[in-house]
């Protein structure tokens, strides 16, 4: 059962790509695989006068309840851990067939040319089991990434909306527009 969520608060993200390197460094990966990926788009014009805004999408593994990559794996290397639903690769079983890469609708499993096997986001299971947070969350520059039990982790968007209502009552603070 998929218990955890790795949440990205886009408004706090600065697209510094630190999470990608934190992840790769922790997994000792070289050029090629990106178990998590920041996709930055824009700027888009959202205001008058012109106001640029970018969109930042964070793509780790979503650790699906019914992961297609696990179904697609012919050797049982791609596994879903029973206790908490973490989807991970047992490297000794991976034969490098890439079925999981094809099966995942999000493009999450990554090909590692150094080992000629698949590597993916496993919420840094080694760290998790030692009571730590994933590398990307631990070292995130702005704190826009958070990790926890999916139905317990507070959503920063609700808190921000509440703060916004207090700071800027509707209709005020819009001078110059």
């Amino acid at each position: 059962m998929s218990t955890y969520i790795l949440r990205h608060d886009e408004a706090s993200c600065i697209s510094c790509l630190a999470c990608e390197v934190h992840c790769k460094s922790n997994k000792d990966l070289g050029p090629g695989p990106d178990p998590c990926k920041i996709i930055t788009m824009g700027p888009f014009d959202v205001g008058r006068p012109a106001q640029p805004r970018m969109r930042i999408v964070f793509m780790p593994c979503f650790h699906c309840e019914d992961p297609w990559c696990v179904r697609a794996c012919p050797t049982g290397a791609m596994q879903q851990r029973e206790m908490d639903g973490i989807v991970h690769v047992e490297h000794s079983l991976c034969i490098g067939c890439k079925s999981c890469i094809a099966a995942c609708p999000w493009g999450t499993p990554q090909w590692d040319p150094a080992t000629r096997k698949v590597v993916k986001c496993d919420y840094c299971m080694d760290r998790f089991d030692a009571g730590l947070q994933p590398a990307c969350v631990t070292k995130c520059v702005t704190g826009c990434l958070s990790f926890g039990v999916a139905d317990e982790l507070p959503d920063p968007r609700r808190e921000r909306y509440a703060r916004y209502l207090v700071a800027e009552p509707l209709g005020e603070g819009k001078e110059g527009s």
Partner: protein
Amino acid sequence: MSSTMAPNVAGVAAPGRRTVYSMCSMCSVRCPIEVTVEDGRAVWLQGNPHDKAIGASLCAKGSAGLALEYDDDQRPQTPLIRTGPRGGGQWRRASWDEALDYIADKLKETIAAFGPRGIMLSDRSGPFTDLTRTFVRALGSPNYFTHDACCTANAHNAARTLFGFSHEGLIPDLGRVKHLVLYGRNIIEALAVKEAKAFMAALANGMRVTYIDPRATFTACKATRYWQVRPNSDYALNLAIIHEVLKQKIYDKAFVDRFVSGMDYLREAVKDTTPEWQVSHTGVPAEQLRAFVRELAADAAHVIFNPGWGTARHKQSFHVSRTALILNVLMGNIEIPGGFILAKPPARYGRKGLNHLIARVPKVEQPRVDGAGTTRPQWDPEIGMLHQAFAAMETAQPYGIGAYFAYRHDPITGLPDTEAAKRALEKLKLFVSIDVRYSEAGWFADVILPEATYLERANILCQMGGAVPNFSMRDQAIAPRFDSRPAWWIFREILRRMDIKEALDFETIEELWNYQLDGTGVTVAEMREKGFVSLANAPKLIPREELRFPTPSGKIEIESAVLKQAGLPSLPPYEAKAAPADDRFLLLIGRTATLTHGQSFNNPLLNEIAPEQVLWIHPDRARPLGIGDGDTVEVRGGGSYVGRIKTRVTPWIHPEAVFMLHGFGATVPLATRAFGRGVADQRLQGGKLYDFDPAGGGCALTEAIVQIKPAVAEGGNQ
């Protein structure tokens, strides 16, 4: 023990798991870090959680420190002595003894020809310069330089003429600021982790941000207001803002009356610079500027005008920084919560600062070669003006320079116009690069001395300025993997060979640290507990009635006595800028959060993220030239160099300019990942080496004009 053995700290290779508190060196920000070491190998890097301002956060460059250490062997591994022509890439490996003896012989030749003042050193400034300044002075030369001529010299010298101290003495209290104004200070991408964290937290708490830049950076995308001004027009904007602030009478009269001189001079300078006047210069609608000033009135005094960091832009950049600082003064935001808190010396908290190494060597009476502090009183002699050292190499005026140490600094990538820079360097008797990597300058040097990486070396202790000063350390986490050495040891060994023993007469770094800490009440063991020791728990603000400014008049000088002495106006009229037409554009440069100057481009993980740049160009200018999005174009900057680069056609760059990231186009073949990738912007800045802001000294980098045309396909479709 042979004098040339590597001086490791005790226990560096000890088995088991250790935590070492240290300081990052993947860029020039020097964030506090925590290093986890297992059996002598660094296995995890993160921010130092004892420092609440950073916590465990680290940027991409910081995390890529492990890749630098263990996956990038394309760096100098022993001392190298050049055997062919300069820049020819022919080297022989040398022992430390041999390389250091070679350097000492050449220094003696230099001294015979030019005197000791013919020796110079440049570095990238920062908190460790007591060592490099001591080295230069011990040799008998006044010629120490920071890299600031192509970085922050304009802002630094502007603050000095106004307040009597550098802008680094002004610490923004971002957590309580209501409105932050940024002139191209791209906080998110030219990234300093603590600053970016504080910035994003303040934004989340409702801080307004006005971001002014010809290009919409990521920071523009977070701002509440973005003005796409014409390139190099920000001084006109500030003159109009000041005009309107005075007209709407929203300045802090009590503060100004008490602490500021020259208000009449200011009124006279801006009397005609109305919001309407600036429209044709900047492109900002007059009504928007007025609305902005009304907003300031609502938020004052909790408004900060950021004086900039990299301000080597155009020939009135000094006055952009200076008028931004004047606006802070008008807001009355000095030494109040939610404003600029003044950096305090340890004595403010009843503490003694670190003992300086430089106190161990006699003062040098010779004038500096760049005239800083003498013939050019407006330039701070503590940072100097590097391009004028190059002028002296070339012309031997006012006197000759024969030996140059570039310490962890790449003047060939940093300074504009590589051909001109190399012409000057060619005249040297000795050019030494001390670095962890092959820089462009190193490749052109006579000797490369490999410094141990920041994980492999200990530095001298440093005293960090701030509202509360602290002592910080870069401790050695692991033993060097190659035949490299820490800088303090390298400089000591050179001085010993010059029979200068007293300046750095320490056998170990711990002995040196004990000298620095003597009488401070802090021990090395305490330093190692957290990697730093704060000299107080909380900032102690100076009451208004006790505020003093170290200017000649003791006041904040809008009309500066120092500028007057230099024969320069304190508020010159704005110099209108012509719009480049046809295939001509101003070349703007900038940073991204994963790369630092030329420094990290060969790192396996960072190179992968951004192996090349793109050229931002406005659709209205690209179309007539037959240039589409993603096309390859040729870029020329006056010299023989032609850059080939793919375009990003976007309205988020001002039509008069093109933009590219700085630091690409490396020519060192041994650094294979960076070699030949992207375009070297500094090679497109033809004729700019000696083109600078006369008041601040900073290079006029963004006045460089380039020509753009579609590239002829090279080997088929691009």
